[in-house]
């Protein structure tokens, strides 16, 4: 041990370690440790000051004891003292102890931070590195607070030593991962990115991990790294194996850095710059070419390093999914690996091919390897490799090879390892359903599945086969026959009995013509299994029996006898007893007709997503489900989150540019008089016509609608009248167009709900018209700006709008609209201001009717004006004590409204916060004892009164059902307010 004997060996430590190793029993070890702990404690407490060496030795012993798995509750202070030692090894041991045994004791953290601060500013590179290591090892919030500002400076400073830069980069990465809010890259971004160009390969290697992580979070700010990474990669890939000296690993130039560069590029889409992209494609081709060259060394390290780069390159090619040529080459390369003698390569090739299988460019190429993969499933000795093979078969399955793959998977199931059976069963069930061309094959497959691996067939699987058989009458007879045959086996799985009971109970009549499966034979077969089954299955069988009585009257007496027997009618299980009693009674008193009605064949199940698929997703996470399914989900998600919002942003930007800022004072509102209420809505005939084909349908379709055209003629004259004198509209009330306003469109409530938590955005949009909203509220007053945009190139004539509010609303709100110009040019936008005064709390929303003529056809649509009672909230800050006192005061049942509902938008904490803030109440932090819950407080300002409201939202991410659920509770001094707010909010989450 040459290096160790250099003189820093701590003899006492070595002796202690030997002692421990010589202990014959656990008890002896504990005894020896306790003796040592007592010794160290007395040394630390002793009057004599310990020298640095002893302190180091004892701290090191404590560390050793801790690493053996024993608790250490002292010595921290001595370790911290070592930090201020001038001797490197003492300092080093101090830091090591802290890194391993950090304690959240804040007093100590302050002292540790102090030591770190001293070392960071020491300008001694080895001390600085030690301090940075400690920060990275502990990575606590307190440390981030203390040093997150300092480290970027060290990282990019010109005079920082390379080794310190490396430590600083990774230290910063650790802090960014634990406390991203505290690490502000801002001004350093570009200098950090340019570390990719650093002369020192070690610096680049360390920095790239940081850059990759930052790029994942802020792709736009770091996108300049793409071209730098490509050129760096290109230099490495084309370098001779000796160029990079110590960074060449077993003849492979810089394998770690190459992998990291390829990984970084996977944070971005393919480079847009043609030259950069060309260079990158060249790199990828070179890497693929090199894989074909003879190895430069026989060492496994050489091939591992080389192939690590190759797999990372393939991952990038798959990520881009845009270069068919490269994808197919990648697939061929992986195909070679499938038969490689190295198990590791076979494993990785199977894994990597799974992702290739979902690319349209390489799916077919992957399929050509089916025989090899099936062979792997059969012959691999390592279960983890077989698992990969099964995954790949699942991924490459399509209509053309489904029968083969399902058959192979089924036969594998017979001998499959227990650990993967359940997943295999789900996969077979899904493939069988997805690619079932004829349903008899599907039924065969599932029944085989139950026969082979019944214990692993979850309820979802056998529910599903029953759903499908019930819904498809062409397979019912076959299913009955097959299940009847399957039940002949002397020992069959209980799940088979369940399926058999259900299917024969429904469709036993379809095979009853054959004397070999006559009603009595069927019944006896089922009943022979009865006594071996669990209670739920027996219950199911009893139901099947009563169905038999209906299907086959000749079995009635036999079955009644069974039901009447003591083992049924006096069964100790309540459910079974009840069924026996009720079915017996039913069969004896009901007439054949009544019986036939009660026991009618099950109606078809509504079509829904396969519950099996849902289960597989849950079991394995998104990776388990083939990526086409995933993509679909993503696309949907993308549209839901993206489309509408983007539209809203652009409108607001446009309206800001074209209109004066609406933030003018709102005080003038009070003086404005109320607008007269519009006439009540149209007769029922019109309502029907309009709601069928009216505003909800695309406008173009409306024009062709014969119904509407019939209705139009009488209005032609008023149209021309208006067209002649547009100026008239100033004097004319907005309701000058004679048609009655359309009833609110079906989606108007949904549109209204979109605006509960936000005040700006697009309210409505169809092919002709876009309506944007911008609003602001103060006290009980509000001002809303509506922007009507003509999306066509043709002008709208007779453009008019009206706001109506009837019934109760008249006494609750006061709405004043300014008329709009009756002519909206193609592509133009007009603005309308609406002033709103809240007199008292309200539940309905006023209606906004818009009418205009486009190419002669009348457009008439009615929306709900997006004003809801929460808009008049004034946030109220309060502390926990006040909140709960107030909460208790509002405890009368009518003051509370509560709803429990499923999350329909996920449970992202930040999104929830944003919505609650948008609601207008104050979001109170540190009030609810459960940090997952949200509580809010606010006062609704109306002219008549102020209504105080408290809100509590309790997310339950893992409710029993596996769904994400919320419980929302509103309490306020007014029951109508609680209820309305609760209704509105339940739609938001």
């Amino acid at each position: 041990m040459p290096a160790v004997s250099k003189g820093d060996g701590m003899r006492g430590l070595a002796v202690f370690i030997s002692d421990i190793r010589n202990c014959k029993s656990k008890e002896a070890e504990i005894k020896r440790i306790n003796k040592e702990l007592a010794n160290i404690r007395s040394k630390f407490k002793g009057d004599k000051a310990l020298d640095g060496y002893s302190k180091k030795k004892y701290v090191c012993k404590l560390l050793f004891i801790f690493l053996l798995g024993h608790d250490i509750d002292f010595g921290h202070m001595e370790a911290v003292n070592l930090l201020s030692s001038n001797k490197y090894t003492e300092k080093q041991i101090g830091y090591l102890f802290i890194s391993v045994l950090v304690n959240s004791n804040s007093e100590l953290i302050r002292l540790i931070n102090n030591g770190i601060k001293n070392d960071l500013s020491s300008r001694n590179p080895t001390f600085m590195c030690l301090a940075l290591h400690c920060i990275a090892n502990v990575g606590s919030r307190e440390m981030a607070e203390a040093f997150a500002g300092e480290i970027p400076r060290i990282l990019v400073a010109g005079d920082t030593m390379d080794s310190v830069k490396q430590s600083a980069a990774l230290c910063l990465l650790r802090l960014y991962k634990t406390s991203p809010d505290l690490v502000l890259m801002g001004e350093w971004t570009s200098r950090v990115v340019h570390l990719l160009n650093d002369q020192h390969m070690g610096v680049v290697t360390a920095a790239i991990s940081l850059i990759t992580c930052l790029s994942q979070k802020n792709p736009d700010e770091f996108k300049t790294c793409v071209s730098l990474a490509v050129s760096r990669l290109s230099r490495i890939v084309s370098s001779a194996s000796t160029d990079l000296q110590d960074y060449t690993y077993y003849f492979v130039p810089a394998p770690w850095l190459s992998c990291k560069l390829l990984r970084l590029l996977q944070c971005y889409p393919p480079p847009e710059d043609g030259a950069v992209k060309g260079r990158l494609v060249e790199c990828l081709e070179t890497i693929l070419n090199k894989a074909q060259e003879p190895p430069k060394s026989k060492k496994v390290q050489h091939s591992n390093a080389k192939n690590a780069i190759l797999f990372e390159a393939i991952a990038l090619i798959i990520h881009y999914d845009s270069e068919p040529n490269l994808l197919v080459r990648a697939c061929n390369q992986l195909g070679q690996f499938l038969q490689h003698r190295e198990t590791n390569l076979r494993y990785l090739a199977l894994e990597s091919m799974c992702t290739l299988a979902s690319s349209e460019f390489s799916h077919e190429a992957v399929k050509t390897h089916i025989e090899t993969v099936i062979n792997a499933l059969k012959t691999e000795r390592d279960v983890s490799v077989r698992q990969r093979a099964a995954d790949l078969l699942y991924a490459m399955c399509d209509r053309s090879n489904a029968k083969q793959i399902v058959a192979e998977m089924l036969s594998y199931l017979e001998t499959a390892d227990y650990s993967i059976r359940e997943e295999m069963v789900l996969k077979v069930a899904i493939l069988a359903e997805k690619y079932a061309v004829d349903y008899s094959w599907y039924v065969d497959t599932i029944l085989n599945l139950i026969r082979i691996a019944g214990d692993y067939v979850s309820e979802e699987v056998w529910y599903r086969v029953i759903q499908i058989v019930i819904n498809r009458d062409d397979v019912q007879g076959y299913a009955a026959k097959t299940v009847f045959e399957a039940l002949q086996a002397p020992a069959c799985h209980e799940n088979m009995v369940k399926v058999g009971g259900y299917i024969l109970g429904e469709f036993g009549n379809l095979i009853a013509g054959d004397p070999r499966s006559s009603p009595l034979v069927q019944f006896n077969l089922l009943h022979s299994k009865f006594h071996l089954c669990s209670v739920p299955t027996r219950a199911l069988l009893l139901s099947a029996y009563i169905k038999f009585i209906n299907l086959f009257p000749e079995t009635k007496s036999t079955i009644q006898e069974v039901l009447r027997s003591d083992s049924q009618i006096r069964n100790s299980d309540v459910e079974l007893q009840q069924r026996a009693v009720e079915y017996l009674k039913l069969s004896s008193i009901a007439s054949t007709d009544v019986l036939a009605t009660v026991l009618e064949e099950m109606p078809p199940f509504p079509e829904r997503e396969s519950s099996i698929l849902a289960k597989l997703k849950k079991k394995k996470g998104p990776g388990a489900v083939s990526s086409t399914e995933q993509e679909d989900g993503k696309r949907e998600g993308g549209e839901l989150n993206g489309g509408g919002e983007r539209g809203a942003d652009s409108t607001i930007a446009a309206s800001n540019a074209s209109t004066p800022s609406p933030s003018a004072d709102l005080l003038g509102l009070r003086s404005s008089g109320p607008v007269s209420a519009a006439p009540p809505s149209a007769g029922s005939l019109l309502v029907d016509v309009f709601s069928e084909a009216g505003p909800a349908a695309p406008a173009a379709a409306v024009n062709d609608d014969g119904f509407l055209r019939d209705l139009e003629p009488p209005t032609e004259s008023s149209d021309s009248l208006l067209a002649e004198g547009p100026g008239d509209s100033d004097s004319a009330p907005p309701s000058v167009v004679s048609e009655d306003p359309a009833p609110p469109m079906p989606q108007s409530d949904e549109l209204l709900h979109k605006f509960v938590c936000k005040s700006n955005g697009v309210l409505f949009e169809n092919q002709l018209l876009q309506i944007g909203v911008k609003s602001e509220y103060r006290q009980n007053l509000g001002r809303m700006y509506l922007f009507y945009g003509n999306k066509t190139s043709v002008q709208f004539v007779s453009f008019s709008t009206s706001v109506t509010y009837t019934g109760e609303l008249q006494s609750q709100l006061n709405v004043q609209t300014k008329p709009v110009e009756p002519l909206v040019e193609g592509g133009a936008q007009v603005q309308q201001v609406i002033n709103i005064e809240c007199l008292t709390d309200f539940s309905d929303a006023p209606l906004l009717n818009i009418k205009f003529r486009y190419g002669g056809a009348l457009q008439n649509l009615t929306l709900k004006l997006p004003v809801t009672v929460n808009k008049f909230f004034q946030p109220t800050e309060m502390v926990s004590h006040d909140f709960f006192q107030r909460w208790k005061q509002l405890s009368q049942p009518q003051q509370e409204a509560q709803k429990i509902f499923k999350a329909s938008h996920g449970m992202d904490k930040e999104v929830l916060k944003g919505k609650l803030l948008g609601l207008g109440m104050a979001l109170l932090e540190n009030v609810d004892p459960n940090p997952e819950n949200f509580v809010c407080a606010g006062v609704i300002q109306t002219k008549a009164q102020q209504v105080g409201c408290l809100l509590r939202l309790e997310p339950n991410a893992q409710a029993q059902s596996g769904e994400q659920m919320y419980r929302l509770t509103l309490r306020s001094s007014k029951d109508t307010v609680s209820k309305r707010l609760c209704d509105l909010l339940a739609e938001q989450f």
Partner: protein
Amino acid sequence: MMRFMLLFSRQGKLRLQKWYTATAERDKKKMVRELMQVVLARKPKMCSFLEWRDLKIVYKRYASLYFCCAVEEQDNELITLEVIHRFVELLDKYFGSVCELDIIFNFEKAYFILDEFLMGGEIQDTSKKSVLKAIEQADLLQEVCDVHLGLL
């Protein structure tokens, strides 16, 4: 990013553990126990990678010691295998044909070498020279201090 690295013997004795994310002691013990069981049960010739919880485990046996790393979903298995190998090379170079006993008796040195090589679960430097230079510098500092002490 590497989540943790474990060194343990064929007999299931933990020789070195390095955790790159904050983990409660109780969980650490549970994970170590569970993982040792899984890895020790595997036969030679089996593949060096396995899925375990939401992590990928990459392991390799050198003489009596198992080196076992847990990395994340998107990490490269083969290069992780070579991280292990490079670490073994570093230990070997420093101790001079390293054996399990070196790591037992000089566990603190093993930690220092690992720290110079990996930091926060990422590679700090892959050059053997750079890493060993850093360690030797430290030893040198130690000697200077000792000499200094001797003078006193």
